[in-house]
Structures are given as structure tokens and as C-alpha cells.
């Protein structure tokens, strides 16, 4: 036996150096070849012979790829956005989520423009914003999420105020067959998805997506409402009733240079607390229908001159029943449409100089207004309409010049003028540079302005003794400058530090007035400034696929000399993804949020900060690359934490958020 072992050891000692040496040499050769390809990749020469240098944009952006989304175990768009530096997500009393960007948070998140494949989704003209049906958008069909922080009105027009979130979904080429997926998790959450795509030989292509999601919600304990604190009959103490169910269908059809795409969504939801000061019972119901249709065509005039044209029709319908008191319900509904078109010319003057310019126009209309009230939600009677039917016409002209006067310098200058028939015109410029002052070290600077158009509800709210509209409202304005440094000191490591300063003026807010308790008006201003620090390291070699990343924001948003309520001074995300092999990887995420102040006059203690820990396990490309599975645990340590309830609900305490939650997901490709 001993002799056998000695012989075995001898063989190992004699043979292994050669085997090892062979393996090392093979690996070295491969790495050398990949290094060569990487060196060649640095200089991209497109079909139009235009050089494009990577990382030259002046914008501050964050991109999540489909692979990133799978690794973080995101269930919906909100799960993706909460990892973006400078963005925070909180719960509202009515159900939808608030997207806080760079220290500014509003109830409707109307200062953030969400787009789907480049098409704006701010279809709700009454109350603005896109979160109504898009905050819990399923992510299984998403290919990429691009988040650009800072003003974007110079290119996108209205409401690209604090950030632009562009969601890009999988196309026919990405799908190439049938993809299905299903997920189940805590709170009776279930998600199903089916997608099919094919690229035909005659250059036709088709992609279809169907999503279904349903959840009972987190059933957060609600300790009190305005009735229970007075000892009156009430639903409190009780639980939140934010059930949410949705299905949607998206299509993307193409033939030669033509494309027809769109998405239809139906969403039904309960409410978290309710629309008033009492805890609603299960009779509160929100029902939304939303779709857009877009027909576009790309015209190639010359190799260096192309024109993109599109016409579109957007539709949004709300039909909601709200409980205002235990025995009074209101049913409010309306229907919004936006029909318009856009022409954009793209001209590459030279290899280092490109100009785009365009013209857009649209007609927005609100009608089919429904206002009912009464004791029995099944038999409500008409009440005086709270909002008026309205038509708005608008057009816009824009131009942007991107010029690389030096190989290591990019200048961008652009501006847009928008004209509205109701409040007039607004001009928004944008300019900046990106200068690689040392190899792999770049400086960025940009200045831009943006506007948020008054919503129909803010202009034309009538017959409401609490709040009235103001037809003379002007758009909100923001002026932002930001400066940043980007460094890639070693292979795989990218770090970025950005300072921003935004001055928001003409804020549309509720001011005391004679005709009602308050009226909308342009008053007040906010100054928001902060520093965003980001770092990501992607491992190479045997650890390829693993990464660690961190981002931290220090922000200070001031109104009337006081830090804004319900907004933290700092927030940190720490993430790590570890690839065990080519199939299995694990993920860990820590979110650390600072405590938040209360509004002036709110005597409650400040909302405490917290740290949450999420973990996940992902298996990709199993069983012949046809199966992906994942399992995630959110708030692993079951930390009890709260999102702030507004001062008007100070008797509620705060909104207790979900404890430990699980979600399992399986995806099949055929």
C-alpha cells in the first residue's frame, strides 16, 4: 500500500509540472489573444466610418443589462431602480411608489421621465408622471435599463426634469424563439411571462411579450387612523390592502425600415392606506388602462445622413373608487390621449462631428370625465365634475451638436424650444464636455435646464372646496450643473465621482387662497446638491463573471433654509456577485439609508435610518442553456423598517415595510 502511494505521489510530482505548464501556457496564449482583441475593440469604426469612443457622454448615467437584472434578482422595475446611485424608492399612502432622485421626492414622481424603447410614458395628463402603471413593471422582458440623472429637456422635452429612465425590451433577435418564465414568492406573489420572437429571412421581424403579475401586497400593520385616535369606529388598527394585479401585452413588428410597436397594460390595485385620513377597507379599487401605438421609419438619405420619423398615439384611462370616510365613496375617472409625430435628422458631418435636429408635435386631450359619489360604492351618483375637459397642443424644435475636436475631448451643445398653446414657450439648453485628461481618467462637466409642464389637474381642477386649479400656471424650471471625474486605473475597475447642483424654481405647489383651502400656484424653490460616488470592479481570469460594486450619495436638498423632509442625507448600496462556475453565481446587496427629517411642525421623531441585506442564488444556462433559475431572499435579517408617512397622517406613525421575503424564479427557452 505504501509503495503504491509513493509511486502515485512520484507520478504526480513528475507529471504535474508539465501538465501545469501546458495549462498555464494555453491560458496565457488565450489571454494574450483576448488582450489583442480588446486593444482592437477600443477603436470602433462604424459602417459610416465614424469613430466612436466609449465613455464620452457628458451625461451621468447608469445602465443595467439583462444579466445584471437577473443577478440582482429584481422582481420589477422598482427593484432595479433602488440600486441606482442617487435614486431612492418609498411607499405612498395611495399605493404607487415615489421615485426620489438626487434628494428631491414628490408624491407623483412627475419630475422623472420614464420611457419604453425611447417612447415617453407620461400618459397621465391629469396628474402627470409615469409611475401609475410602470413602477411595478415586470423585468423578465427587459434587455436594458438606462438611467440618466440630470436634466434632459434639451433632448426629450417635458418632464425630463431630474432623470430619464429608458427601458429597452428584448427584440426579435434577442428572443429568437419562445421564452417563458414564472416566479412565485412571499405575499402570494406570482408572475408569468411568455415571449416569442423571430427574425425572418425577408428582413421582417416580430417580437411579442405577455406578462401577468399578481400579489396580495405586504399587509403592513396600520396602527391608527384619524377616527381611531378619536375613539370612533374605524378600520384601524388594520392592515394595508395594496393588492396589485396586472397583465400587459407588448409587440414590436418590423419590415425593412418600418417598425410598429406598442404596449398595452391593465392594472388593478387596492390601496396602501387610502386617499384620505381614514384607513380604507377593501372597497377601494384602482383600475388603469394604458397603451401606446407607434409607427416609425428610418430613411437613409446618404451614408452619413439619416432621418427618423414616427407617428404615435398614447392612451391612458383611470377609473378609481376611493373611500374618503367610512360611509362616503368617490369614483373618479378620465381618459387621456396624446397623438403626435416626430422627425429627427441625423447628420454625421465628419468622423468626429455629428449633429441631430428634430421637430415634434402633439395634441393632448382629456375627456370622458367621471365623478360620482355616495355611500354605496356599487350605487354612486353624479357629483359636480372636479376637473374640466381639456385640449392642449404643443410643438418642439431641438438640435444637438456632438463634436470631438480632439481625440480625448468631446463637446456637446444642444437646445430645445417647446411651445404650448396654454402656457407659452420654454427654452432649454444643454452643454458640456468630457475630457480624458490622462489616459483612463476623464473629467466631465455639464450644464442644462429642464422643465416640468403643468398637468391638467393642476391647471383645471374645479368644484373642489379643498384644492383648486390655476390656469395661469407656468412650468417648473430646473437649472443643473454637474462635474465629475471617471477613472479606470486598472483593468476591471471603474470609479466615478459626480458633484451636482440643481436650482428648482417656480415649483407648482399648493398655496392658501380665498376660493378654497388651497390653490395651485408657482411658488417656492429648492436647491439640491450632492456628491455621488460609484465604484465597480469586475474580476477577470478564473473569477470572470464576479464583481463587487458600491455607490454612495451625500445629498443636501434645501427649501426655505431647511433640509427637505423625508429625504435622507446619505444612501449607500454595496453589492457583490460571485460566480462559482459558468452556471452558478450568488448575489448579495446591502442598502444603507440615513434617517429622514420630518416636515416643519411635525413633532414626531425623525424616521430612523436602516440597513437591509438581500441575497440571491442564480443558475444560468442549465440543461442545454434552456433553463435559468434563481432564488432570492430580501431583507434576510428581517429588519423592521419604515417609510415616512406624511405630516397629514402623523397619527398613523409610519409605513412599516416588508420583512423577510422570498422569491423564486424559473425561465425556460425553447
Amino acid at each position, binding site marked *: 500500500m505504501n509503495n503504491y502511494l509513493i509511486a502515485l505521489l512520484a507520478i504526480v510530482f513528475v507529471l504535474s509540472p508539465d501538465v501545469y505548464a501546458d495549462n498555464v501556457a494555453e491560458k496565457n496564449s488565450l489571454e494574450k*489573444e483576448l488582450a489583442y482583441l480588446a486593444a482592437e475593440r477600443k477603436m470602433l469604426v462604424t459602417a459610416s466610418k465614424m469613430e466612436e469612443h466609449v465613455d464620452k457622454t457628458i451625461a451621468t448615467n447608469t445602465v443595467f443589462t439583462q444579466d445584471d437584472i437577473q443577478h440582482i434578482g429584481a422582481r420589477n422595475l422598482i427593484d432595479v431602480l433602488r440600486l441606482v446611485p442617487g435614486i431612492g424608492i418609498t411607499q405612498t399612502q395611495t399605493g404607487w411608489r415615489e421615485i426620489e432622485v438626487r434628494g428631491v421626492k414628490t408624491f407623483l414622481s412627475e419630475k422623472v421621465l420614464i420611457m419604453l424603447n425611447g417612447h415617453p410614458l407620461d400618459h397621465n395628463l391629469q396628474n402627470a408622471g409615469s409611475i401609475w402603471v410602470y413602477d411595478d413593471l415586470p423585468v423578465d422582458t427587459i434587455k436594458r435599463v438606462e438611467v440618466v440623472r440630470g436634466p434632459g429637456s434639451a433632448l426629450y422635452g417635458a418632464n425630463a426634469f431630474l432623470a430619464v429612465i429608458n427601458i429597452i425590451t428584448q427584440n426579435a433577435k434577442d428572443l429568437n424563439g419562445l421564452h417563458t418564465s414564472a416566479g412565485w414568492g412571499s405575499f402570494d406573489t406570482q408572475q408569468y411571462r411568455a415571449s416569442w420572437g423571430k427574425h425572418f429571412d425577408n428582413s421582417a421581424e416580430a417580437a411579442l411579450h405577455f406578462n401577468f403579475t399578481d400579489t396580495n401586497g405586504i399587509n403592513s400593520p396600520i396602527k391608527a387612523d384619524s377616527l381611531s385616535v378619536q375613539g370612533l369606529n374605524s378600520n384601524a388598527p388594520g392592515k394595508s390592502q395594496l393588492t396589485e394585479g396586472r397583465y400587459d401585452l407588448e409587440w414590436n413588428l418590423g419590415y425593412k425600415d418600418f417598425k410598429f410597436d406598442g404596449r398595452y397594460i391593465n392594472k388593478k390595485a387596492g390601496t396602501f392606506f387610502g386617499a384620505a385620513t381614514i384607513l380604507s377597507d377593501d372597497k377601494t379599487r384602482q383600475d388603469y388602462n394604458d397603451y401606446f401605438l407607434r409607427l416609425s421609419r428610418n430613411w437613409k438619405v446618404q451614408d452619413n445622413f439619416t432621418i427618423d420619423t414616427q407617428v404615435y398615439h398614447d392612451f391612458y384611462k383611470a377609473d378609481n373608487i376611493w373611500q374618503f370616510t367610512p360611509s362616503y365613496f368617490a369614483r373618479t375617472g378620465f381618459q387621456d390621449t396624446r397623438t403626435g409625430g416626430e422627425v429627427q435628422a441625423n447628420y454625421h458631418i465628419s468622423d468626429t462631428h455629428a449633429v441631430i435636429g428634430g421637430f415634434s408635435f402633439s395634441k393632448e386631450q382629456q375627456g370622458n370625465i367621471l365623478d360620482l359619489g355616495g355611500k354605496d360604492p356599487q350605487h354612486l351618483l353624479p357629483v359636480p365634475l372636479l376637473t374640466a375637459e381639456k385640449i392642449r397642443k404643443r410643438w418642439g424644435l431641438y438640435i444637438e451638436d456632438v463634436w470631438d475636436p480632439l481625440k480625448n475631448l468631446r463637446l456637446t451643445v444642444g437646445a430645445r424650444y417647446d411651445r404650448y398653446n396654454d402656457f407659452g414657450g420654454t427654452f432649454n439648453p444643454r452643454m458640456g464636455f468630457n475630457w480624458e485628461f490622462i489616459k483612463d481618467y476623464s473629467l466631465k462637466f455639464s450644464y442644462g435646464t429642464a422643465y416640468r409642464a403643468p398637468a391638467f389637474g393642476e391647471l383645471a381642477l374645479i368644484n373642489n372646496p379643498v384644492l383648486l386649479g390655476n390656469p395661469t400656471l407656468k412650468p417648473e424650471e430646473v437649472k443643473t450643473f454637474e462635474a465629475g471625474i471617471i477613472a479606470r486605473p486598472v483593468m476591471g475597475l471603474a470609479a466615478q465621482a459626480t458633484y451636482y447642483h440643481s436650482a428648482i424654481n417656480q415649483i407648482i405647489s399648493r398655496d392658501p387662497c380665498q376660493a378654497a383651502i388651497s390653490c395651485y400656484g408657482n411658488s417656492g424653490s429648492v436647491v439640491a446638491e450632492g456628491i455621488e460616488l460609484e465604484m465597480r470592479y469586475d474580476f477577470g481570469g478564473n473569477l470572470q463573471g464576479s464583481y463587487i460594486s458600491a455607490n454612495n450619495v451625500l445629498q443636501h436638498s434645501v427649501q426655505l433654509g431647511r433640509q427637505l423632509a423625508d429625504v435622507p442625507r446619505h444612501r449607500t448600496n454595496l453589492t457583490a456577485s460571485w460566480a462559482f462556475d459558468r452556471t452558478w453565481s450568488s448575489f448579495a446587496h446591502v442598502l444603507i439609508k440615513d434617517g429622514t427629517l420630518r416636515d416643519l411642525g411635525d413633532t414626531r421623531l425623525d424616521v430612523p435610518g436602516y440597513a437591509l441585506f438581500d441575497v440571491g442564488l442564480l443558475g444560468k444556462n442549465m440543461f442545454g442553456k434552456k433553463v435559468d433559475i434563481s432564488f432570492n431572499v430580501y431583507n434576510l435579517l428581517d429588519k423592521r423598517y419604515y417609510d415616512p408617512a406624511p405630516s397629514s397622517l402623523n397619527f398613523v406613525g409610519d409605513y412599516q415595510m416588508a420583512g423577510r421575503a422570498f422569491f423564486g424564479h424559473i425561465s425556460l427557452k425553447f
Partner: protein
Amino acid sequence: MIGVQTISAHLKKMYFCKVLSLFFFCGAAFAQTGKVLIVNTDNSVFRYEKIATEFKNALQLNAYKWTEFDLERHINDEEELKRLIQEDPPGLVFCLGSEAFLLADKLAHNKKMLFSGVINWQRLAIGEKTNGVANELSPMHELSLLHYFFPSIKNIGVVYSESFSLEYVENLKKTALPLGINVISRSNNGQDDINAVLTDLMPKIDMFWLIADPGVISGLGTMQQIFDTAKQYKKPVYAYSDVFIGQGAVLSISVDLATIGRQAAGLAIKMDMDDKAPSGVVQTPVGSTITLNKCVLDMLKLKFNPDALDSVNDIVGCGK
């Protein structure tokens, strides 16, 4: 007045230098120090370094001198290269890699240019007085060899990025048709899911051709995806370099880098000796190494022309 006098004196001085230079340097215009400028994208990259070394060896044997400029080692490479070209104008600029060529082409107006190590040179705008040695073998050469080795192969699949390889793949398709080979191509811009492209392509082909496309082979992971998918569909992979034999390629025809370096030096000397030497000449590499992976060949039970074994330089078995 003072300014005019100064300029006049300066011009006289330049004229005197020019006359002198005619006497001393008329034999070999850039056979003097600094007259060949080697611009390297990144000398730490093996392929560039190997070609450069052989190029310099060949120049040395012919008593030429050179100056080197490595873009990777200069903070402000454009400014510094511009200054170098202005202060010591080279007779010829030899560029290694796309980045070096694009930069030098922009800065060295009317200079004789030579390039090598550039992936798919046809995507570049080649100006006058420019010659080169391609990075790829001629498609006809490779296709003929493939046809010789594997006579039964009719459908070959290629995944490419339009940014880097459009012209190369179009040429490949045209060249393959007369040989009775159908090249089925799928473009992938690096952001699309390569899995979907591969799973669409693999069932339609007899062999997968891995081309040197930086937009497709974006890292170790993508490369492994390609080989895994090929293995799953039991499709052989033909690769442009023998470094992929260890990953499971059945055959590779690799260009010989040392030969490319010597070829480039030969072209450089020809361009120097003959001012009327034709420009726009891009030679294909003349040296290559054929490597056969016998292990994969047997595993996939491929029909291989036994007569072709004589042409193989290196046969790799399962033991390695």
C-alpha cells in the same frame, strides 16, 4: 520689418539645410535615424509586439533606423505624436493596430503609411501612399483548405459584428459560393444576447467559423458561450488562431506573426526604394500554421480527408 528679416534669414537657413540634405541623404530617404516611425497601439499586446520585433529585426539587417511611439505609454498621445511627426518628419510610418493607424493617418498627412495587426482592414479608409499587411488570410485560401480538409462541409456559420467585420464577412460569402459552400452569417452588436444568435444559427450549419471579431469575442465568457453552444449542438468549430484549439476548436489556421513582421519590413523597404511603388497594396499574410484537434475530430466523427493530413503542421490529441 524686423519680422520679415527674421523670416527671410530662417528661410535661407532652411534652404541651406535642404541642399545639404540632398547631398548626404539622397540614397535612402529614410535610412537615417528617425526616418521610420513605428506607431504601436500597445506594445504590451503580444501580437503587436511580435510583429514589431520582427519588423525591426528585418530593418536592422537592411541598415535602417527607426523611432518607436507606443500610444499606451503616452498620456496625451495625439499631441505628442503630432509633435514628434512635426519635429522629426518620418519618411514612412508603420502602424500596428487600428488605433495607431487611425491616429497616425490623421496626423501624418502625405506621409507613406504602412499598417499591420489591424482587424479587417477593409473597414478603414485607406488613403494614398498607404500599404499594409492584412491580419487575416485570404478567404479563398482558408475556404479552399477547409474544403480540402472537410469535403462534406456545405454550410458554415459565422457570427460577426457589423462594426468590425461587415466587409470581411461579405467577402467571405461571395468567395464561398463558387466552392459550393454557403456561409450563413448572423450579426451581433455585442449588446444583443449571443446565446439567442448561436441557438438560431447552430442547427442550420455544418461548421462554425470563429473569426477575429472584437465585437463578438468580447471576453472569456462570450468565447466559452460559443464553444459550449457548438459542443451542445455537436458542431465543429474552425478558428482563426490555434489558441482556440485548447477550447475545443477542431481546426485552426493561424497566421505567422513573425512572417507578417518580415513582410511588412519588405514592403517598407520597397516603398522607400521606389517612390513610384504602387500604393493601396494590402498583402495577405504568407505564413500560416495549421493545427488539427484529433480529439475533437474523433469525438464528432467528422469526415476528414486523410490525404490532407500531410498539410497539417500540428496534430493535438486528447492527452494534451
